[in-house]
């Protein structure tokens, strides 16, 4: 078992072996969560603070549940309503919180790099729950776990990531993770929604869904943000759905057993057809939510072990 990280800020610093460690432990937590007694004392005595500077229901609930099931004391802070509005800087907020001795800090922030910045200023373990367009590591880990359980492997798969790559932290973390695990990654979407020089990331880029989805094992759809729909990046919602929305016709060129994924929340009829999303033979969207809790439990468990080991070291040194 290998997991040496102090924080979980992104997929970029993780070694493939560390990714496997998280996923193996998460597998155990999936069984645990399906049992009748969903409470453990793994994180007992530790304080977990969820700081969300950007609205989130699913991710926050998932982290909260993960912490509570492992016995941590969990506190949610709605940062949108807090002192940030009064002009306090991120670092001052971090220092204030740090003085309260939290052990696990779960942070989402609208700016890339903000979670890294915060992590430099606190003593506890920091989990990135999404920073700007940079990374969303637990999403990539839960996607990986979903794929591994559905396909029985997490290497040598053809995986298509479709939609708004440019503004997506989910896409970035997934490209990094799936690349580290040696899969073939295709990115499919209109060129206005592709980041610059994305071809240098070891991926294949397509602007045609039928070409991009041909013979893939996994179709990963991304959410298209409402504010990008009108005119600026794409001409209209209906043209986008026509060219890039996932429907039965476009999916038919993928492998017959290809799975369909979506990080949620979905825009039915914009990036994905409602019937595909609900087709339990193809869609693993509900499993992704289930894996999310398990992966977050695993990540917090591993970080807490490193944290405790460090504290013990300090005590006996």
């Amino acid at each position: 078992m290998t997991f040496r990280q102090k924080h979980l800020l992104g997929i970029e610093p993780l070694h493939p072996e560390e990714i496997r460690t998280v996923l193996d432990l998460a597998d155990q937590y999936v069984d645990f969560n399906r049992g009748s007694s969903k409470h453990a004392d793994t994180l007992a005595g530790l304080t977990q603070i969820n700081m969300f500077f950007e609205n989130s229901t699913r991710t926050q609930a998932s982290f909260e549940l993960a912490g509570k099931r492992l016995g941590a004391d969990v506190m949610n802070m709605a940062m949108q309503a807090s002192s940030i509005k009064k002009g306090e800087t991120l670092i001052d907020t971090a220092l204030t919180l740090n003085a309260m001795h939290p052990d696990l800090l779960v942070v989402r922030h609208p700016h890339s790099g903000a979670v890294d910045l915060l992590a430099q200023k606190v003593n506890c373990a920091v989990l990135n729950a999404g920073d700007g367009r940079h990374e969303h590591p637990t999403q990539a880990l839960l996607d990986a776990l979903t794929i591994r359980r559905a396909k029985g492997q997490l290497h040598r798969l053809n995986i298509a990531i479709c939609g708004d790559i440019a503004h997506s932290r989910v896409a970035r973390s997934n490209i990094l993770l799936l690349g580290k695990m040696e899969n073939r990654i295709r990115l499919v979407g209109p060129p206005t929604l592709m980041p610059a020089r994305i071809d240098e990331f070891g991926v294949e880029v397509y602007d045609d869904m039928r070409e991009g989805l041909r013979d893939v094992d996994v179709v990963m759809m991304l959410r298209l943000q409402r504010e990008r729909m009108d005119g600026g990046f794409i001409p209209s919602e209906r043209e986008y759905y026509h060219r890039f929305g996932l429907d039965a016709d476009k999916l038919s060129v993928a492998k017959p057993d290809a799975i369909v994924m979506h990080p949620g929340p979905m825009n039915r009829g914009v990036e994905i057809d409602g019937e595909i999303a609900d087709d339990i033979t193809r869609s693993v969207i509900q499993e992704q939510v289930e894996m999310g809790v398990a992966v977050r439990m695993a990540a917090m468990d591993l970080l807490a072990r490193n944290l405790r080991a460090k504290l013990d070291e300090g005590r006996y040194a």
Partner: protein
Amino acid sequence: MKTLLENARIIDPEGGTDRIGWLLIENGAIAGTGCEEAPQGADERINCAGKCLAPGIVDIGVKIGEPGERHKESFASAGRAAAAGGVTTMVTRPDTTPAIDTPEALEFVTRRATEDSPVRIAPMAALTKGRAGREMTEIGFLLDAGAVAFTDGDAVTTDAKVLSRAMTYARSLGALVMAHPQDPSLSKGAAVTSGKFASLRGLPAVSPMAERMAMDRDMALVEMTGVRYHADQITTARALPALERAKKNGLDVTAGVSIHHLTLNELDVGDYRTFFKVKPPLRSEDDRQALIQAVASGLIDVVCSMHTPQDEESKRLPFEEAASGAVGLETLLPAAMRLVHSGQIDLPTLWRALSLNPAKRLGLAGGRLTAGSPADLVLFDPDAPFVLDRFKLNSKSKNTPFDGARMQGKVLSTWVGGARVFGG
């Protein structure tokens, strides 16, 4: 009063020479230089021990926080930093709060500078009122009050009609217009240069093409109006052909580049280090190499520090939100020495870009060693190594990208008008 500096390695940008000799200062001016036997009869003789003696740096584009942001930098603190960095003339920017856009405001700058700064100040004034890009300033009055150039800083005038009129008016008075060639609609909101690194970090980015587009537009306007034009910073390889063409076609155009774009590249931002956030953003290594060549060949005329003090508060923010700019008065010389130590440029050529060209472009008397020029000089050890500690800088603001960097090149003494303002 005669002071003789002897046994000095004299860097003469005008003659393009680098040799051991002497320099005589008489009544605040340079009385002569030579490499034969030193003249007798000096009141004071200083043995320079073979260290480099060069004209003091003329730094175009220094931001001082007066008026408006004195907590970031004052004339006194900037002046001390300049003296310690071998900068003998600070050509100040008008992008203060409020902007220097009236003769009265300019007189304030001149008065404060004379009171507090140990080095010379040559103030620039805004080209349009409030730097808003709508109405031109009183260019005539401002010239009379001592403005050496007219610029709106990084506020690019998008209205070509307004800009062309301001240029035409400036031309009639022989005034120099300094512009910031960046297409503002492309560069809006950008924190870094677009490319693989920006995509990996998920930061809003600008295509390097924004600089070429603005340069193409500006060159057309210069051709149309005949104005004397200086581009504050050319930072990409793609903008160089437009500059080269304009010069070849006989337009009165010069260009500068900041030392940061010559010594750092986009990857230095690393894990969102905001001290590396400058405007325009740091570029690719290919761009940096092309810029060094352009300075060596003389295509780019001026190297400057683009000294932009920012307090800790405005830098300790997520990268996108953090303020742009870096201080540079004290690090300009040692950073520039990196280009010499890497063998890409020689000292007289470097000093053309640091002192002679900016002085000539602005019509200032300094920046050269000719007899009769003011004795604005810097004596430095080109090889002395040190590790930069940002808290030892004289600037009130400590936002340098070179914190902890190993550097070579130490200023030993600085003279302004024959008076020693730094060193012993």
